[in-house]
């Protein structure tokens, strides 16, 4: 099982801050995971409607879309940061 966490409007659109999921076999990269999530229902489709804008982190480190998800304990999706 992998923990997925969502922030800001990604969280609002999906409607929950986190969930535990078993990633299906075909999901190898962060981009694969985003695509697969987008197919899980309209709230997910809305969150990932512009997949290029959603950022990801694996185990609290920024990652790129082509990063493998194998071995990840916690995968986060969120909009571009607006801190500072």
């Amino acid at each position, binding site marked *: 099982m992998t923990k997925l966490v969502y*922030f800001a409007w990604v969280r609002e659109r999906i409607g929950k801050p986190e969930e535990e999921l078993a990633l299906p076999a075909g999901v190898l990269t962060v981009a694969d995971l985003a695509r697969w999530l987008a197919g899980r229902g309209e709230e997910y489709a809305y969150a990932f409607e512009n997949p290029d804008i959603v950022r990801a982190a694996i185990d609290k480190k920024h990652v790129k879309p082509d990063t493998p998800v194998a071995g990840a304990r916690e995968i*986060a999706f969120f*909009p571009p940061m*607006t*801190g*500072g």
Partner: protein
Amino acid sequence: MSGAVVPFVDIRAEDFDVSAEIARLTSGRADIGAVVTFVGLCRDEGGTLAALELEHYPGMAEDEIARVAAEAVRRWPLTGVTAIHRYGRIAPGGNIVLVVTASAHRAAAFAAGEFLMDYLKTRAPFWKKEHRVDGTSGDWVEAKAEDDAAADRWAARQG
């Protein structure tokens, strides 16, 4: 000198006091010639903003800012560096972020302070949502392309 510098990073709801944070880096020492502080405040966009709600990714926010602060210590001969970022509801005029950089000389303190802010803007996992004075929930603040450009310029040059 810079090898011993451990950045002070704090992610919290409470406000900060700039003088106290400067003293944290300077008191009892005589080897510091320059201290630069940056305070980022909540601006009201034309009288419609009641507050900003700052959401963050606990754990990652601390780690990411500590990474950026450690990179500043590697790049410049700093004697100390502090970064405090608040979360939660912050009204217009309120403090959001503080960066303090101390060095023997001013050029390093200025450059490191600007570097920290540029990176913090684009890498620290914080998001701002507007709450409007009419009681409605406003938009999520959008990231600016100019912030990415500001961060990118440090990749090209060292120190």
